[in-house]
């Protein structure tokens, strides 16, 4: 099973398609000949708009590569990726940069913030770079949602790890991107701070209608998502809707066992 395509539905989001991003027959390979390694093997995937999607899989399964390709950070060997109606495969660096700046938000595992800028400046950085004025009302709402109102003038070094990730979430939300990609955004946090950040992400989907794709290997983190995609050896091997930590864990144990017996 190498496909996780949902039937396109037209939702109520201003005439836009219900699919925020889609990948078709995406191959990502490194090297050539004997040493050729295939990280993504003809992957088809649709990311539903307004949903929280988690991508899971063991190390080396290609989950990060898939996210990087969907986000326009990495190039594909073959296949197509569309962000809404825009095909991003084949775009030149200039256009890709603009696309990332205007339509995508990022939350990385660590080192999300520029040490020279304070929290507020970090939050508005993508808009500053684009030369756009942030929407004041929206910004206030985002800052309040992530609970940083009294920390805006602090430099990253003066914030705790959890606070830093919340700033990163706020930055990703502030520009109202079409889609936010998170690369193990809670990987460096303890469970309480992690839960806080995941809670914000969940709320931004529910209350703000945000589309989020998150790579993780933590079943608890995955349980915040609407849908979980499982990757193994560069292919999508399974998917699960409305996951809970237990069901995710069970499914993973299942894969592990299958991996051992086969």
């Amino acid at each position, binding site marked *: 099973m190498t496909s996780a395509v949902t039937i396109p539905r037209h939702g109520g989001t201003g005439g836009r398609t219900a699919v925020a991003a889609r990948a078709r027959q995406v191959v990502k390979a490194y090297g050539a000949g004997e040493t050729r390694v295939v990280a993504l093997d003809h992957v088809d995937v649709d990311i539903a708009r307004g949903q929280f999607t988690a991508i899971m899989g063991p190390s080396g399964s290609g989950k990060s590569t898939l996210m*990087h390709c969907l986000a326009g*950070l*990495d190039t594909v060997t073959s296949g197509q990726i569309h962000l809404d109606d825009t095909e991003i495969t084949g775009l030149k*660096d*200039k256009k890709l*940069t*603009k696309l*990332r*700046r*205007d339509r*995508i*938000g*990022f939350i*990385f595992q660590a*080192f*999300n*913030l*520029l*040490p*020279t*800028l304070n929290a507020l*400046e970090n939050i508005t*950085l*993508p808009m*500053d*770079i*684009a*030369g756009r004025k942030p929407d004041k009302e929206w910004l206030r709402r985002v800052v309040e949602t992530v609970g940083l109102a009294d920390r805006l003038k602090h430099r990253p*070094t003066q914030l705790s790890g959890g606070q830093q990730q919340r700033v990163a979430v706020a*930055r990703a939300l502030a520009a109202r991107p079409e889609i936010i990609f998170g690369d193990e955004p809670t990987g460096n946090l303890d469970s309480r701070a992690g839960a806080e950040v995941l809670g914000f992400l969940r709320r931004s989907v529910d209350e703000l209608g945000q589309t989020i794709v998150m790579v993780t290997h933590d079943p608890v983190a995955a349980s915040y998502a609407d849908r979980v995609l499982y990757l193994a050896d560069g292919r999508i091997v399974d998917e699960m809707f409305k996951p809970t930590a237990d069901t995710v864990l069970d499914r993973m144990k299942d894969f592990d066992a299958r991996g051992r017996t086969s």
Partner: protein
Amino acid sequence: MTVMKTSMRNFFAHKGRMALSAVAVLLSVAFVCGTLVFTDTMNTTFDKLFAATSSDVTVSAKGASDTGATTSDNGRPPVMPASVVGKVRAAAGVKAAEGTVFSTSVTVVNAGKDSMSPSSGAPTIVGSWNSNDARTMKITSGAAPGNSGQIMVDADTADKHHLKLGDELAVISAVGTHTAKISGIADFTVTNPGAAIFYLDTRTAQQALVGQTGVFTNVNVTAAAGVTDPQLKKNVTAELGSAYKVQTAKETADANQKDVESFLSVMKYAMLGFAGIAFLVGIFLIINTFSMLVAQRTREIGLMRAVGSSRGQVNRSVLVEALLLGVVGSVLGVGAGVGIAVGLMKLMGSMGMHLSTSDLTVAWTTPVIGLILGVVVTVLAAYLPARRAGRVSPMAALRDAGAPADARAGRIRALVGLVLTGAGGYSLYLASATEKAKEGSAWLGLGIVLSLIGFVVIGPLLAGAVVRVLGAVLLRMFGPVGRMAERNALRNPRRTGATGAALMIGLALVACLSVVGSSMVASASDQLDKTVGTDFIIQSDSGQRITPQAVKAVKDVPGLARVTEYRTTTADYTTPDGETLKDTDITAADPTYATDLRTKTVAGDLKDAYLPDSMSVHDKFAKAHGIRLGSKIAVKFKDGRTAHLTVRAITSSDGLIDAGSKYTNITTLAKYVPAAKMPLDDLVFATAKDGRQDAAYTALKSALHDYPQYTVRDQTDYKQALKDQIGQLLNLIYGLLALAIIVAVLGVVNTLALSVVERTREIGLMRAIGLSRRQLRRMIRMESVVIALFGALLGLGLGMGWGATAQKLLALQGLKVLEIPWPTIIGVFVGSAFVGLFAALIPAFRAGRMNVLNAIATD
């Protein structure tokens, strides 16, 4: 051993990051070695030349200098009668003796009246063709001069001026002008560094150079087999008595060599001084490199400490890396130094000074000095960062390193810096306020050193303030990119400070010298305007005196109200206080000189100094020797009798022009010095009748057309010439300072390049969230510009302070006007911005090329 191994590995792992430091070491060492090799080579060349051209024993007239130079104030070489040759031949051990005539007080022009003299400052020599010269020269075409219509020229000069057989040349001396056609061209068999040499037959040389036959300037004596030079000298001296100067080949060569060496050593030490400045600048670069490498490696060092490395070991491992860097840089530098020397020789060649690479002299001390200097400086510079590395705690291994913490400049640093700067400022103040020149220069020197060190120490603190101001003025208009550039320049003030300080040093010197230079020009112009009452100044730019024929040509020009002759000589003074002053200068001029130069007097009327048997002295001289108006001074003129002159005016010792001259009338000089020994004019001043200046200027120029060695200038042109002269000197110095500035620019490149490496993740993050390549490159360029402007601002400020102080001090010597050359200063400031842009080219390009994913993934 482990220390060595980790050092080696680190060194090679980071060789890219070390490259620019190595280049800095390389450049400095290369400049030192290049200077040494070049001056040694020049010495070798002249050694060979003098050894080859000196005959076993040379006899010359009493008045000749030890070098056998044949110049004198009256433009005719000192001579001896031909009978001396016969006497020398009679001496024991003499194989041969030949009389020769030479003069360097000559100018040779071609048919188009263009001077054949070398532009390099090397002499023009005209002499009789003799067997001694035949030893070192080979006639390559034509034949030696055989009659009065023939002249032979050296091949280099012939080449340079496209002279061929049959061309007409004119020899202009104090005696007159002699015309002849080229009969032959002779080439040196040794390297001739650039003198233009012409040969006549002996009789013609006597007539053309001395104005009489039967006289020689030198007798070249050849020793018989088995007779040593000192023995021969003894024998010849015994025959001639003490009436003539007798020198062995070695003595002549040594005297010549001494002349050259004194010039060469000035050049050598000046160039080594500039190399020293480059080294100083290089130190900043090395300190920065190692500081950044240590900072980037903090975790690694922490791990080393955690697993049991001692502080000393960590410390040493950094120093060993510095040692490796020093060795690599120095070895390459020594090699490059030889290249620089060859380049300098080629450059000299293009200016008419021919040096042969076969004479290239690399003394064993040169590479040794280069290596030691390079290695010691590098290791010393790395000492501070090494100590900092030693202090890294084992805990650093466990901490999340990320970007190194913003090293807050400590309070002690601020205090020390302020104290030093304050002390420097106070010294400078003392220098500007003092009345004693000697004391003042000591204060000035101290002030410069202290303020420089002070600025270096508080550089990091100033960086904060200056960068913020620059940021507010320049960067804000570039929006968030500008803001980030400003923050980046500010995040490590010590680094920015050191990088800027390196640039500061070179630019401070540029600013200081340009202030002093333009103040000189302004002061001189100012004084010219105030005191000079004549229209035209005639002089030789090569320092030759003006022949009577040329003076007559000037006097014959129509439309002139007056012509003033001006000549200097020396005399032994016996002053009223009973002191005897040997070889003291005295100026003899026409009385109209008192009108041509309105020198201020403190007592008496300057015009009276031109009365018969009268003179003037300047204030300081009068005070030192108890001279008052009416005092009598016994003046024994050189080559003349003793006169008892009455002091009738005392002039002010202040001023730039002719300050400190003691004047008397030319007719007074003529009374005591025989006509044959009368010195020629140094300068001639001409003043046009009212309203006829332009016509007179043209007429003067055409009157002097036949004498290309002399230039006539009106006041405007004179000022321009003065300006050009100082400008040339400044350009030469700027050229040498360029080395230090290049090293400083490498420092900016280095800092940026290492910063970019250090900020790999940050750059990746910014690229990921949408910073375009152009914006990224612009950010790095702006950071670079800000650092460069910071250095420029500090340097120019400091340098202008030094320059203004120097002017205040030199005001005692007549440098009354302070002129800040704003165009230069602003030009340098704006230029620094471009230097910053240039320095950022490669770092920005590399940052832009970074793969976003790799940048994010970098640990």
